[in-house]
């Protein structure tokens, strides 16, 4: 929990706070309200920040790397004090032209064909988790913490050649960075992601393997080995960006299915609908909101953005903009035209998008095979993360629904 509770929000148009628990619970309603009356909201919190809610404005900012810098991508009360162009987690915090150099090291590891090679790992992970759930004999489980959470942790640990048991530590560090940015009490140096990565990079430089960390340790830019800061920053990025995000995507999909028996039936009966369903989960429950710092004064949606202001890139809000999507506020499991921006737009398109999509598809397939019928055990007990990654963090699910209660249990 944050050390100091966030002050209540007076008006979401002029005083928004995406780290407030009210935002976590009601974000889609807040975006719809803002889009209607004030498409670009503002807050004096965080030293000044903007929240565009229309697809047009979000896309414009995402593609404008002159007026906006990626040096800061998580909104905090301070401004990152790192010289451009690398930033602290390349390539997500890098600007052109260095961005393309840093990104190129990762692309071939995350191309669709490279990710196909990790599908078995993901599927075995899901099956192990489901076997544990079934063996426990209980009919109520927390699908967020006992299933969805573990899948991306285990796959990314294998990709990086790190022990899966370190996953618990990853989650604590990620929580601090993403959900409580700048709101933590003093922590010991040994208990930080930086310290852990330093040790791992040092270890790997002395004893190379065939994992992604070893590859980065051997990579070079114009004959110069990558700086330790670069390797550490990129690995930190893959851990931070690769876990909570996909955990959220899987969790939101299960949350939706728990309440929509018709969509569950469609998924089970019609395998051809599944790729469309995954994209609709990504549109409707897009987990990730990115951020930029204003590099040069600029006007967006009639709002004067000043140098060093933050602006959120609310892809989840853009995905529900009725000007960009027909029936934007409806989940349509077989939506055919779906230009969603869950993985961002422009040069910073999520480098792990193929991995995330594969993990979501496999996690849903395995879950639905094992539990074709299930429901929220206590809808009011579901909690959502705060900050820039949105998904269920606690979600009690009843997995063995009595046969007599299967139909007519939809809860909106």
């Amino acid at each position, binding site marked *: 929990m944050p050390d100091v509770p966030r002050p209540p929000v007076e008006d979401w148009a002029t005083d928004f706070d995406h780290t407030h628990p009210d935002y976590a619970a009601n974000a889609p309603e807040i975006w719809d309200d803002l889009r209607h009356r004030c498409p670009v909201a503002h807050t004096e919190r965080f030293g000044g920040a903007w929240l565009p809610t229309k697809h047009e404005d979000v896309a414009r900012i995402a593609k404008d790397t002159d007026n906006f810098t990626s040096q800061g991508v998580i909104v905090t009360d301070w401004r990152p004090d790192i010289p451009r162009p690398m930033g602290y987690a390349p390539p997500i915090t890098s600007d052109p032209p260095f961005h393309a150099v840093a990104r190129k090291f990762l692309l071939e590891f995350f191309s669709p064909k490279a990710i196909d090679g990790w599908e078995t790992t993901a599927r075995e992970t899901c099956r192990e988790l489901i076997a544990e759930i079934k063996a426990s004999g209980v009919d109520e489980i927390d699908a967020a913490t006992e299933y969805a959470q573990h899948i991306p942790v285990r796959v990314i640990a294998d990709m990086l050649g790190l022990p899966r048991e370190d996953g618990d530590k990853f989650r604590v560090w990620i929580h601090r960075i993403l959900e409580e940015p700048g709101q933590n009490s003093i922590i010991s140096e040994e208990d930080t992601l930086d310290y852990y990565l330093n040790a791992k990079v040092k270890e790997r430089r002395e004893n190379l393997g065939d994992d992604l960390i070893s590859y980065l340790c051997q990579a070079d830019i114009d004959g110069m080995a990558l700086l330790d800061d670069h390797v550490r920053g990129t690995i930190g990025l893959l851990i931070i960006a690769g876990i909570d995000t996909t955990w959220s995507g899987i969790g939101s999909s299960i949350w939706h299915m728990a309440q929509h028996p018709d969509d569950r039936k469609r998924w089970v009966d019609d395998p051809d609908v599944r790729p469309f369903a995954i994209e609709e989960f990504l549109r409707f429950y897009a987990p990730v909101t990115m951020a930029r710092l204003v590099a040069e004064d600029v006007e967006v949606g009639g709002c004067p953005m000043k140098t060093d202001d933050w602006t959120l890139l609310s892809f989840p809000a853009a995905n529900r903009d009725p000007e960009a999507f027909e029936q934007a506020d409806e989940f349509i499991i077989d939506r055919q035209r779906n230009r969603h921006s869950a*993985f961002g737009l422009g040069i910073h398109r999520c480098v792990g998008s193929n991995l995330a999509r594969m993990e979501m598809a496999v996690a849903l397939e395995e879950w639905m095979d094992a539990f074709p019928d299930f429901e929220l055990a206590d809808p009011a007990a579901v909690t959502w993360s705060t900050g820039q990654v949105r998904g269920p963090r606690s979600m009690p699910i009843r997995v063995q629904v009595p046969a007599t209660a299967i139909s007519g249990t939809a809860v909106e």
Partner: protein
Amino acid sequence: MKITYDREACQGHNRCYMLAPELFDTDDEGYAILLVDGEIPDELEEKARLAADNCPEFAIEIVEE
């Protein structure tokens, strides 16, 4: 029907490759490669439209003749 693909606009979302593998491949870095030159065969017209209509970067266009 013809299809055009703008490599500069493509950011490697891979939606086209998933929806229409007969028309798009991807390179080692995950950027699209348009496999057809000229007329789209009738049986692939719907897939071509899907690829165009799902590209988040508007990098694919259909040219009806």
